[in-house]
């Protein structure tokens, strides 16, 4: 999903800009650098995905960062605001109610459900009934499957992601932007669609293979309905995360360090092995951790691939426990969710340990990529990368399209037999899909726009205030996104199952509980572009407004919001993109009339109408690509670091 790349890239950006803020090009900048001016961004915020840290730019010292001019220098007025001046925001100046508002909102959205979950988990453990679930064979099997598939996925992601990252970042191949853009797609496309597409691509039932005459013989098993299949797809889904993490680490690699090595006579291979690889190990470790933790929490892929083969992972176990509701269900799923949360936390801690002591602060020119020229190898490298992309991305999508066009199962696809019936059914006849579409659009827009009301004040606070308060706020915002979606869904069920106090209305079973869960889950995603913009904004713009006499709301309206507008727009689009395709949270929270797109696809496939599921999935993919293209189109107005496929 999208939030992760944001944070990976934004983290690299934000640290660089922080350094600039500390050590500006002017002498006075040095004076200010002695002051703990900007809160060293609370560590939690520099976590990329799933709550861990990409190492703070290890290659840049505060004094030596070159003064940078934004590459967007131009006569447009927007360009002017992107130049950083190395000053700091002044403390105070925000009204007291702001802090209360932001904290209150974040507490309601983040702390409250999690506390409720923890409490239910503890009660479940005490009660004894629910504890039994921990010791059932099914749980052990699920735990084992989860760890195996997550580890396997991590290995595959690491391999593919690092390969792409090294080639794109370190060499002079052409078409880097297109390659990065395309490589981001597996991550943007919802996991259940990825799984569907791959299933349609492989096995004897594949319409694509059938049409090409390559289908395996009758009765061959579907190879993807296996632990290996799940691991493979997890690897494909999360490879872009590793890509981003490694690229971010490499972005700060010292050019002159590499040049010095080559002058010493080292061949490019030795330079890579002895210098670049060790220096990029923090990025590799970070990427591996992201991929692992994402693999643990992934629901869509094991739901589609595992259930037909009776393979359960912890998220699907929770889901099926919930689906076969019993008296001890709440306690049981609370306990299982806590288990998942603990494994995720362990993964993150391991990653923290691994990164300790890998502080490669070097002095050197930063910001320039070490470029290896490939010469004759260039074509081969480009061909390799594009063919990997073709295999991982294009082929499954083609299979998906093919399977949405068959008139009935098992009929080979040709221009005669092709039929748009599935699309007609999905778009015009099936009220469920229309409802799901409507719901998803509503939820996604409401979450995207509504979150700004929280994230803009929160971003302001985080950048101007310092100290433990800001750190606490940052952590509270990060946690719900770091947790696997299924855990969050359970937390929200428990927190809102009973009618709300005072109002006496129960949110359970309504669309509002899904909206609340989305608010909580995507708060961190919405915050990132806004934070980037705040960090890159010249603080003296606001100070001048203060001196001009403008109070907080006034200067928010006249100065800050217009300057934040592009980032806010990006935030809206990004949250919309993720929320519209979301499955995990809504899989547990949906009810009659509140299905979402993700749930619709899943249900259609689950009930055997996989042609309809494919048609809907194709539409979803088209929407994803369309929105990404829209973002790319807006790229020149956006602060750096907001779009993950750009540098």
């Amino acid at each position, binding site marked *: 999903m999208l939030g992760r790349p944001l944070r990976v890239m934004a983290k690299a950006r934000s640290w660089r800009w922080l350094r600039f803020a500390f050590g500006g090009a002017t002498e006075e900048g040095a004076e200010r650098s002695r002051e703990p001016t900007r809160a060293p961004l609370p560590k939690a915020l520099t976590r990329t995905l799933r709550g861990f840290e990409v190492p703070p730019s290890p290659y840049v010292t505060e004094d030596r960062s070159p003064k940078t001019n934004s590459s967007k220098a131009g006569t447009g007025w927007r360009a002017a605001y992107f130049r950083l001046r190395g000053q700091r925001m002044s403390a105070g100046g925000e009204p007291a109610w702001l802090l209360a508002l932001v904290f209150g909102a974040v507490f309601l959205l983040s702390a409250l459900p999690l506390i409720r979950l923890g409490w239910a988990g503890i009660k479940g453990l005490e009660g004894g009934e629910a504890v039994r679930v921990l010791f059932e064979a*099914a749980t052990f099997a699920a735990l084992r499957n989860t760890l195996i598939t997550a580890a396997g996925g991590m290995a595959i992601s690491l391999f593919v992601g690092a390969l792409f990252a090294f080639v794109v970042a370190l060499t002079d191949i052409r078409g880097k932007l297109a390659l990065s853009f395309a490589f981001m797609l597996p991550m943007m496309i919802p996991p259940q669609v990825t799984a569907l597409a791959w299933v349609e691509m492989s*096995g*004897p*039932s*594949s319409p694509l293979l059938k049409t090409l005459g390559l*289908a395996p013989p*009758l*009765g*061959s*098993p*579907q190879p993807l309905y296996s632990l290996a299949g799940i691991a493979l797809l997890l690897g494909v889904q999360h490879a872009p995360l590793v890509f981003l993490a490694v690229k971010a680490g490499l972005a700060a690699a010292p050019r002159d360090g590499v040049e010095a090595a080559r002058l010493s006579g080292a061949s490019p291979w030795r330079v890579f092995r002895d210098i670049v690889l060790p220096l990029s190990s923090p990025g590799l470790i970070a990427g591996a951790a992201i991929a692992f933790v994402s693999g643990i929490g992934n629901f869509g892929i094991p739901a589609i691939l595992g*259930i*037909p*083969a*009776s393979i*359960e992972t912890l998220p699907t176990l929770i889901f099926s426990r*919930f*689906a*076969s*509701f019993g008296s001890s*269900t709440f306690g049981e799923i609370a306990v299982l969710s806590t288990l998942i949360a603990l494994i995720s936390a362990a993964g993150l801690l391991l990653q923290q340990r691994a990164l300790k002591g890998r502080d490669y602060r070097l002095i050197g020119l930063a910001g320039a990529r070490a470029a290896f020229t490939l010469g004759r190898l260039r074509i081969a490298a480009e061909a390799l990368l594009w063919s990997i992309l073709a295999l991982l991305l294009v082929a499954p999508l083609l299979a998906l399209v093919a399977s949405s066009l068959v*008139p*009935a*199962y*098992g*009929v080979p696809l040709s221009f005669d*037999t092709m039929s748009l019936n599935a699309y007609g*059914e999905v778009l015009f*006849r*099936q*009220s*469920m899909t229309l*409802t799901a579409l*409507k719901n998803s*659009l*509503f939820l996604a*827009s*409401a979450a995207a*726009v509504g979150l700004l009301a929280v994230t803009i004040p929160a971003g302001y606070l985080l950048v101007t205030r310092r100290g433990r308060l800001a750190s606490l706020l940052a952590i509270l915002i990060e946690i719900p996104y770091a947790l696997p979606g299924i855990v969050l869904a359970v937390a929200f069920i428990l927190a809102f*199952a009973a009618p709300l106090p005072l109002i006496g209305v*129960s949110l*359970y*079973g309504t669309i509002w509980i899904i909206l609340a869960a989305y608010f909580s889950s995507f708060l961190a995603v919405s915050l990132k572009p806004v934070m980037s913009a705040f960090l890159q904004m010249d603080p003296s713009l606001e100070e001048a407004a203060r001196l001009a006499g403008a109070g907080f709301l006034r200067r928010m309206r006249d100065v800050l919001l217009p300057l934040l*507008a*592009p980032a*806010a*727009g990006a935030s*809206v689009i990004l949250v919309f993109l993720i929320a519209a395709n979301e499955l995990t949270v809504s899989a547990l929270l949906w*009810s*009659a*009339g509140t*299905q979402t797109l993700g749930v619709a696809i899943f*249900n*259609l496939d*689950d*009930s*055997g*109408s*996989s042609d*309809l599921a494919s048609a809907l999935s194709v539409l979803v993919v088209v929407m994803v690509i369309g929105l990404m293209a829209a973002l790319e189109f807006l790229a020149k107005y956006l602060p750096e670091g907001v779009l993950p496929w750009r540098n």
Partner: protein
Amino acid sequence: MKTLLPAVAAALVAGLLSTAAFAESLVLYTSQPNEDAQATVDAFEAANPGVEVEWVREGTTKIMAKLMAEIEAGNPVADVLLIADTVTMHRLKEAGHLMPYKSPEAAAYDASLFDGEGAYYSTKMITTGIIYNASASMKPTGWQDLAKPEAKGLVTMPSPLTSGAALIHAQTLAGIDGLGWDYYKALAENGATAAGGNGGVLKAVATGEKAYGMVVDFMAIRERAKGAPVEFVFPAEGVSAVTEPVAVLKTARNPETAKKFVDFLLSEEGQQVAVKMGYIPARDGMALPAGFPARETIKVLPVDAAEAVKNSEADLKTFSGIFGTN
């Protein structure tokens, strides 16, 4: 940006408003396949303008779980239930969740097809037989053929944990001399899999992933008519049947509309809709859809409903023990 915000706000408001008032509304929980559920609802809405029906579709077991969860949480949403088998319905009746209603249409039905107090009414007859891929080497004629070595690893069936019809089918076959649970054990040893619902089985056999399957009749016959390379056979030993009963829930928020829905399903018009979808109608005197043999030639195996109710839990466990948990 300036125009974006008002536009989004307008869209949100429009979205919210559109969910507002129809004169009457109805919430249907069903285990029918998505397209059939949609067609049923469309026909009902056409015959009763001013009514908007929201429906939720999941396998019988899951839909029951959803229903129970909502009742427990004190927030039941469903008005009317349309699921695969009467055994599950009867359990609901005994737990007191159904609202008895004497439908005038009941006169056209055999007494065995509906509950004496009007708690539920059968709407169709759905049998489970054998589906096989047209390119399969062995053409089965009876259940025992599926345990043959030629069918090794090529057989699939729906799981009773998902499909109500599958549960009845297992209970029926288990009660037959010469089949019983040993038959299922033999299938399992022969590499048969049991997972998911009937839709999955149909897809697996039609696309060639498996060669043989146990599946409900209307699905197989319908797809064959659309060109799928499958054949359906009513096995020699006989078939199990479920009757897809409909019932009004006691906690219904729209009981009057729910009753209208029941009446519609039982009416000749409603039954004709079922026939068009490829189901055998339950109403007296109606012709079967194309592709079916004559009604009299279909040998339906008996199942003791009371016993079935009592043994459901145990039977589910037995089945899981043989095939795994899904």
